[in-house]
């Protein structure tokens, strides 16, 4: 996996909440046994009309979003199915980072991204950034006002900077494990296999029928 340090690119908006992975990459594309070829079908049902031509009403089809590599959207992005194809599609379309707001509901913190999607994103070098609702709102407004607005995402500094005449920047929090993982572009399996001895030891004392119980 390619390490993620800092990235500068055009921001595109997708003004919807609860975007599910069925929407990100519809079922008919899950039949593939390959890991590539998903980018052209990202948001397929929204993106293309009945005639197979790009739907001019879909936000991402606007010319000024061409080549965008940062997506900003609303809460609970990537909910639903566990399909990693959704992250492959996002990445292969060209997005390196997605920004969405966390929310507060009944006094609890509602994360910006669905759990499995967020995990899958890390494995594919896609950075998911959580900001507050008002910060996200501000970026939406700026993108609407300034066509082809660019941002720089500095992972080390945990900062998103909008390149306006007077730069605005936002700090984001990130799980240090995820940060390190993205920065080094680590291969999880290789890392875990370094603990092979521990796994083997564990297996000798672990009863598969009664895990945690006394071995037979």
């Amino acid at each position, binding site marked *: 996996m390619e390490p993620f340090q800092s990235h500068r690119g055009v921001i595109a908006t997708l003004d*919807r909440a609860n975007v599910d992975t069925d929407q990100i990459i519809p079922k008919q594309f899950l*039949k593939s046994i390959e890991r590539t070829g998903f980018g052209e079908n990202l948001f397929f049902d929204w993106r293309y009309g009945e005639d197979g031509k790009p739907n001019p009403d879909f936000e991402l089809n606007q010319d000024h979003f061409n080549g965008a590599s940062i997506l900003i959207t609303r809460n609970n992005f990537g909910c639903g*199915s566990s399909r990693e194809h959704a*992250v492959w599609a996002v990445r292969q379309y060209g997005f390196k980072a997605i920004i969405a707001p966390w929310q507060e509901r009944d006094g609890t913190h509602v994360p910006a991204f669905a759990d499995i999607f967020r995990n899958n994103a890390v494995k594919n070098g896609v950075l998911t950034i959580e900001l507050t609702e008002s910060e996200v709102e501000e970026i939406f407004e700026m993108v609407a006002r300034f066509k082809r607005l660019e941002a720089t995402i500095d992972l080390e500094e945990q900062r998103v900077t909008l390149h306006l005449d007077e730069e605005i920047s936002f700090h984001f929090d990130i799980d240090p494990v995820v940060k390190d993982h993205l920065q080094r572009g680590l291969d*999880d399996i290789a890392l875990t296999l370094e*603990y092979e001895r*521990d796994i083997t030891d564990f297996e000798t004392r672990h009863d598969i029928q009664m895990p945690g119980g006394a071995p037979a």
Partner: protein
Amino acid sequence: MAAQTLFEKIWNRHLVKTMADGTALLYIDRHLVHEVTSPQAFEGLRLTGRTVRRPDLSFATMDHNVPTTEDRLTIRDPISKAQVEALRQNCKEFGITLYDLGSDEQGIVHMIGPELGITVPGLTMVCGDSHTSTHGAFGTLAFGIGTSEVEHVLATQTLRQSRPKTFKVEFTGRLKPGSTSKDMVLKLIGLIGTAGGTGYVIEYCGEAVRGLSMEARMTICNMSIEGGARAGMIAPDENTFEYIASGNRPFAPTGEALERAIAYWKTLPTDPEASFDRTLTIEADTIAPQITWGTSPGMVVDVTGHVPEPDQVPGYSRKDVEQALSYMGLTPGTPMTDIRPDTVFLGSCTNSRMEDLRRAAAIFKGRKKADSVRLIVVPGSQRVRRQAEAEGLDRIFKEAGGEWRYAGCSMCLGMNPDQLKPQERCASTSNRNFEGRQGKGGRTHLVSPEMAAAAAVEGHFVDIRNWS
């Protein structure tokens, strides 16, 4: 030792190591595999020259893609066929048990785990499928993973995980007749929202949960993911032990081993003093049959309710609701019971077990579906199909004018030929009402099996509590 929750007991006993960075390396006891989310994982193993560490702990079947009609063994779609073929090859090459299309035990992956005794209490279980949460009904920690993680489990039999938070959902009192465990979980999602459980593992408890059969418990745990939770769990009890001891479950312990296992499983329930990060109490006796009106499982109301006004839905913006209503072709203020489905789908890993089919059949017995309705009944597994036929349920569905299918996911996600047409409206016993989920442009209303069956008879939704 400090008081622990069910989740904590299982988590702690599967900890191979806590990494320097605080991540847990968690041992995985059972891994379920299906054709859609596994090919790239096996390919990854081949590319890196790795192998499957414990082929004896992975179990595969074909469900998402497969046709459910009489001629299902000949898959006409060449791409679907290639995927099914890939799973066959991979299982052969790596020595994994496969319940192939055409096998007596083939079925939806979350059906066959419990049926075959692969799912028992106290385990860690994963599958490249979000509804793996279903297995939590047995008091097991079960959750969905992506394809990279599938590869990780195949290669190492472990996963790197950060520890989720715990969320106790207590259902007090008893369900009233006409309401089901499907309504309990839809009600919960309506309350907390589809992201309300993100980052948590839910434990369902309380009198109403204890009163549920294993099959009904699976329905609740199944939809935990629809509330954003990684997993849902229910403490094992006599119902659980009886389920495991009954029927033909080749992978479950028997005899003396079962007795020892039960003694161990009895130690799993949450200690009385244990605490959760979050708790919520719902009075089960106030839960009415639920129907979704929108394109997110949290867009749900009581059957006595109406299609809402755009600014009157907690947790959803006006824009979300307007988008959903326009997609669904619904007008605010319409009574839910005025809505007329064109298709009724009885199936999916949420509601296609014996009890679901029996309850639906009781409604169809001696009745016909409305002429305006297409009725499809898809048992979740071949085992359920055979049992239903032995009880004559297939005849009831057919005499009511329905189609009786072979096992698979079918119209739950429409990856096979079973799909809704644009704007077609469906009463579905499945778990997701997302845009296009059951077919591009299709409109889904999630309900319990009895609500779906009664809607098929009447041609519109009815309040099952006062319908006869």
